[in-house]
């Protein structure tokens, strides 16, 4: 159920990317896709105890292992978040420049390139 909803979220983002004409909307849709992926990774790392994988003072390794979630997907998601942010910043910069050249955010009105 949770997985299906996350995939639906990803699909909504994908739909936005292919269907929207507004450059900013396309960027927003890409961000939605990233959110879905990040959430999927963290959900896959969830374990029974549901505690953050941080050893508190005086705790034994086995005790932590029995209650903690998987730290590895979290590390990957952190990296993925930063990568997503980088892509967003760059695409907004391109969008600002496009606006300056064309006076619009509408892709359909930017048709300098042939097919």
């Amino acid at each position, binding site marked *: 159920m949770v997985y299906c909803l996350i995939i639906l979220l990803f699909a909504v983002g994908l739909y936005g990317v292919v269907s929207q004409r507004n450059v900013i909307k396309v960027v927003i849709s890409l961000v939605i896709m990233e959110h879905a992926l990040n959430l999927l990774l963290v959900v896959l790392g969830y374990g029974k105890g549901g505690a953050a994988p941080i050893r508190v003072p005086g705790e034994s390794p086995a005790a932590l292992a029995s209650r903690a979630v998987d730290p590895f997907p979290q590390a990957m998601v952190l990296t993925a978040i930063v990568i997503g942010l980088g892509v967003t910043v760059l695409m907004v910069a391109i969008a600002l*420049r496009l606006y300056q050249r*064309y006076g619009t955010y509408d892709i359909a009105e930017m048709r300098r390139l042939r097919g």
Partner: protein
Amino acid sequence: MNGMSTVVKTVARWVIGFILLVGLWLVAYGHLSPGGGFPGGVVIASGFILLVLAHGGRSADRVFPRPVARVLDSVGALSFLFLALLGLWVGGEFFRNTIQKGSPGRLHEVFNAGIIPFANLAIAVKVSMSFVVAFGVIAACRLRAGGAFESEEED
């Protein structure tokens, strides 16, 4: 951009110290509690962004000139790479955590994790300066459709 009202400026001046403190705490204790170089760096950057928003671009530039931020950005990245190469140089492997670490019984001390606190610091410098520059660049460019491109970026 002359900034906002005096109330905002005063509050910003009070709050910024607190924000920087939180940022530094996140950086320093990143390996002992939730946090780390990246969130800490973003928090520090948000302090500067607040400064820019409240006082306007000009005066913020006087406090923290963007070229300096640009240089520190590169320096942060280089020092992280340097830490990685230090591992290659001293320990024989790229990224080997060479500094003394993990001594028994000292798990929750700050300087017992080898290069980790230093790496956190390098990342924090890099990330915060990145955001200061990125925000400055995006905030500074005022575009008019088809018209002249106004940007504070030289070349």
